[in-house]
């Protein structure tokens, strides 16, 4: 019984972390049709931003929840204005350029921070499930994931900015005719996607530690979550995270973490073959 509860929390955690690392990518891919292969590096930068801010004496919660998203969001806007905006509509070239950006950022952070793992001690202590102890930070990660998903959904559906963003993505020329500056909307959308990615990287930093090439561990998982989810940003990310997160954690429990990931990636390849448009290409089609 205790074991089942423990496993349940672990599965929830796997789902939450998957949703968290994929949400920013889903915004950038789902709304702008830009494949950002530097996504993993945005996560890594979020982790470094939080750790560095904490090292300079900032409160750990402010470092994770405020500094990291702002820093990475700003980097995102710069990247959009300097690289991405020349490449709209050339989806393959965007992939290549952002892959270049990914290598560049890995190289840059290696030069600055060195090729070592730095960490942030997880706050909050631990709690007990029957005979087992578990880090309370796990619950915090789950809460942040739920809050981020709800926040993005609410922003897209109920705010004016969300409406403008959705309209611009659907028909940029029409939005421009109505007085919206599409360039600015693109830059802000990319920035928001990057900021959420930075938040995710910072939230996960105490769990995994941070090193320059950590992005490689995240990028494939977040991509297949987004592609498996399909066009709808929040529903797609949530449903794909539930599916893949559960498969990953259960396979990990049955074998080893590595084969848990292999099971996740294998399941994703099968899913894309069966549902090329992702889960929301077939189900929940009118969702956001």
């Amino acid at each position, binding site marked *: 019984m205790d074991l089942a509860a423990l496993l349940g929390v672990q599965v929830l955690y796997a789902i939450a972390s998957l949703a968290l690392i994929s949400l920013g990518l889903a915004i950038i891919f789902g709304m702008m049709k830009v*494949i950002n292969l530097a996504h993993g590096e945005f996560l890594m930068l979020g982790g470094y931003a939080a750790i560095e801010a904490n090292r300079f004496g900032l409160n750990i919660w402010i470092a994770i929840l405020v500094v990291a998203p702002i820093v990475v969001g700003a980097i995102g806007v710069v990247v959009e204005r300097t*690289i991405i905006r*020349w*490449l709209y509509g050339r*989806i*393959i*070239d965007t*992939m*290549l*350029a952002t*892959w*270049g*950006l*990914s*290598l*560049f*950022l*890995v*190289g*840059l952070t*290696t*030069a600055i921070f060195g090729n070592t793992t730095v960490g942030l001690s997880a706050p909050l202590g631990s709690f007990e499930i029957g005979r087992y102890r578990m880090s309370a930070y796990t619950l915090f990660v789950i809460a942040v994931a739920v809050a981020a998903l709800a926040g993005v959904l609410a922003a897209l559906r109920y705010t004016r900015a969300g409406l403008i963003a959705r309209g611009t993505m659907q028909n940029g020329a029409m939005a421009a005719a109505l007085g919206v500056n599409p360039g600015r909307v693109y830059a802000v959308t990319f920035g928001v996607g990057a900021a959420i990615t930075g938040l995710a990287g910072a939230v996960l930093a105490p769990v995994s530690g941070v090193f320059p090439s950590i992005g*490689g561990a995240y990028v*494939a998982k977040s*991509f*297949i979550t987004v*592609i498996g989810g399909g066009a709808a940003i929040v529903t797609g990310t949530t449903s794909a995270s539930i599916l893949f997160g559960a498969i990953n954690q259960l396979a990990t429990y049955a074998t*080893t973490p*590595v*084969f848990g*990931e*292999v099971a996740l*990636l*294998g399941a*994703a*390849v099968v899913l*894309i*073959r069966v549902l*090329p448009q992702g889960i929301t290409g077939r189900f929940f089609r009118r969702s956001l």
Partner: protein
Amino acid sequence: MSGRDLLGLVVAGAAGLAVLILTPIYFELDTVLNLTVYMIMAVLALSLALVWGFGGILCFGQSAFFGLGAYTYAIAIINMGESTAPLLLSILVPALFAAALGYFIFYGRISDVYLGVITLTVTLILFNSINSTAGPEFHIGAARLGGFNGIPGIPPLNWPLQKDKPVDLQGMFYLSTASLIVVYFGLRALLASRFGHIIVGIRENERRAELLGYDPRAYKLATFVIGAALAGYAGCLFANWGAFVSPTIFGLAQSAQIIIWVIVGGRGALIGPILGCIGIQWLTAALGANAPTGAGGFAAVLGNAPLVLGAILIAFVLLVPKGLAPTLADLTGQRMRAR
């Protein structure tokens, strides 16, 4: 074939033969060793040049086939001791793997973008799984997989079916260079053939080729498999060259490097990726040599291969999207017409 093409072929052949014959006479053994790996990587670059440049299939995981070839050779030769069958297996296994994967991709009609992501994912799966096989319980026959430590001490190739006549270092150079020349001319012949015209036609307009009665799925699959076989062969040579393989040859950095060679050299011509490959490798080696470990400041930045490679990739996509060889050809062509 026009006169200019013929001239190009003759020049390429003569240059290849000159490198093949003259290098070991005029250079020291360490230079020859370096050149050997350039030649091997150029074969790998050609495999992607075929798949991407002519087949229009953007494979982000060409290093998966390269690594698979290297591992297959290593495992097979440790078990068999004689290199003829391992060499063939190192071509066959990646080809079969590509056939299975490609069937999935092309017959599922997965779009270009997802193709890139799937091939990348497969590469990461291979990297992660091989990386985690460090324990002694992971072995195939007598060969321990070694996980992140790799497989050291791989026996070299020998003359076909003559176990006691191994190929020495200079022999490896001859073999690699000759392979590059043969692969280059083989691909030229392939592209000049009916098959070559069809795959280029499919790249240009898949729907039209299909309406004319060609099955793009089968042709793309065939191109993909040929590319994988070539990459596997390059992997076999590479495993020989260093007598060592480790999972990093599946890694993202390796995949990116192959793409960069082709982008920098230029798609749509075979000579471009060869030059791009050799140029970039020379550049990374030179940058690495200039930055002793622990160097700070400017040297550390320049000696940092990912940083420089990343900047090169971004710059080429933004500024020279066709790559060097076609851009230079365009420029000289314009100048000649202007006269």
